[in-house]
């Protein structure tokens, strides 16, 4: 059986299952969603995954990121990421413990891609979405270097970022998902 046919068959099954559920509820759903093209979806899709899917083209280094950090981030996170009105971002690669409960990037964050995803969508709070891809890569590189996870001159881009080895990568236990 071709992959395409298998695909269609499974989808058919899923659709039947869905209709059966809807029928059990005594409801008949209208189908009012407007189909989207692949190019429509691209405009909406801003998710960055740990394997690097969703990362845009562009690049940056810690050296470039340092200046941007001071301009855009330091007023809330401190001159060197030590935290101020907002949380600390720099704690070095020391593992978390009851004596070191810091949730800074170095000790705690399991994936480097998360920095890009969050800075890109949410930072700075007064103008989220205002940073270019290059600027976001540079700030991400600065934060990784300040935590002594990469070097000052290491180039961070869509290929290198997912490969950054975070010290606390295996520090989490999934509770409600097995």
């Amino acid at each position, binding site marked *: 059986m071709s992959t395409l046919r298998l695909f269609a068959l499974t989808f058919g099954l899923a659709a039947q299952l869905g209709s059966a559920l809807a029928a059990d509820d005594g409801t008949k759903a209208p189908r009012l969603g407007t189909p989207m093209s*692949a190019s429509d979806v691209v405009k909406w899709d801003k998710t960055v995954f740990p394997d690097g899917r969703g990362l845009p083209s562009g690049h940056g280094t810690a050296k470039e990121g340092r200046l941007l950090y001071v301009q855009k981030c330091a007023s809330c996170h401190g001159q060197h990421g030590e935290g101020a009105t907002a949380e600390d971002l720099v704690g070095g690669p020391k593992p978390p413990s009851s004596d070191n409960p810091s949730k800074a990037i170095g000790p705690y964050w399991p994936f480097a*891609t998360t920095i890009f995803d969050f800075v890109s969508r949410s930072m700075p709070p007064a103008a989220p979405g205002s940073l270019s891809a290059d600027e976001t890569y540079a700030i991400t590189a600065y934060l990784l270097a300040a935590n002594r996870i990469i070097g000052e001159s290491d180039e961070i881009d869509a290929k290198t970022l997912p490969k950054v080895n975070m010290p606390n990568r295996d520090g*989490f236990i999934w509770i409600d998902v097995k």
Partner: protein
Amino acid sequence: MAAKLSNDDLTPVAGNGILHRRLFLKGGLVLATAQAASSLSAKEAADTQPQDLSDPPWLHETGGPFTGYGVPSKYEKFVFRNIGGNRVPAGDGVSWTPLEDLEGIITPSGLHFERHHDGVPDIDPALHRLVIHGLVRQPLEFTVESLLRYPMRSRFLFIECGGNSNAGWHEEPIQRPVGAFHGLVSCSEWTGVPLSILLDEAGVDPKASWVIAEGADAGLMNVSLPLAKLADDAMIGVYQNGERVRPENGYPIRLIVPGWEGITNVKWLRRLHITDQPAMTRNETAKYTELLPSGKARMFTFAMDAKSVITSPSPGQKLHGPNVYEIRGLAWSGRGRIAKVDVSADGGKTWAEAHLQDPVMPQCFTRFRCPWTWHGEPALIKSRATDETGYVQPERDVLVRERGREGYFHYNAIVCWAIDEDGEITHVYA
């Protein structure tokens, strides 16, 4: 104090004056209530009465005008959300539901707790879309107007912030009204479109197992959720307590994920990315995870475990002399219905079952009540919830032994209020 009741009725069923819950089924039980510590004594109130109360002035003049949208009485101005935890910038913070001022199980929409990461967006519903894409047969875009035409369901559900009650982890017991300690939880009737209908329309690929939900607030707050739960009982919430969802609660549409921590109920929902792995967003890794003494951290702790708290008597209120009081409180569980609530007045040495007020619904506030004779002596009052899975709300020392004190989120231990000889109420660890 308790006409038509026999002496047997007033025989305690647990230490320090806890009475049987059946008293609620009998007539004639007159209960005293704890009052705000600042409220006037009966004598002071009498002194300020201007005239014969049988003939107040409002009997003799036309009342106020009709109003397009009513608001609470001006005499209830003291009931408001306490805004706290605000940092720079101002959009990041919380406001607490004043649990001590409310009764029953429904939280008025204007008093529903708030947690925003970058403020409340001002969304024009005509310009808002919900997009479903990823591992689907056909990516779809929905207008808000079109969602209103789908079949809807209503459910009474609590929503609780994962960080609710986090002061419980502090070394010293925090002294605040119960709402400013445990009030990042609220309960509403939510009405909306079962998400399974929209997923069916898009045609979900069997390889899919996760959904990344994204809000339309500044910062595009995003979280990853297991597809199985969303397909099971999640809905696109459109109405809250009969009216359209309030802006601070996600207008025009929000995700409703019954029993799961607040952040998963994504407000201002604009996108559902159907996929095969979590995105490991900042909030589900760096924030809403709980560091254990082992150095490992709990992650994807979605369900809110069973919890209860006594709302009256509670800190900031006062007992005015020995009497029969009604202990009142709320219990809830993200894993189903509340099966029972036990109440103690001797710090947990002895317990008696409280009366659970109908209706008792899954993933919903349950109001409990228990009559109690306070003899004017020191008392330690506690409540302990058990849900239908058999899970029992833990004592604080048990929870802290298991989790340490650095977890911050998912604090659900038994809460103890101490009452002294003067009827003053404080929060204690006991």
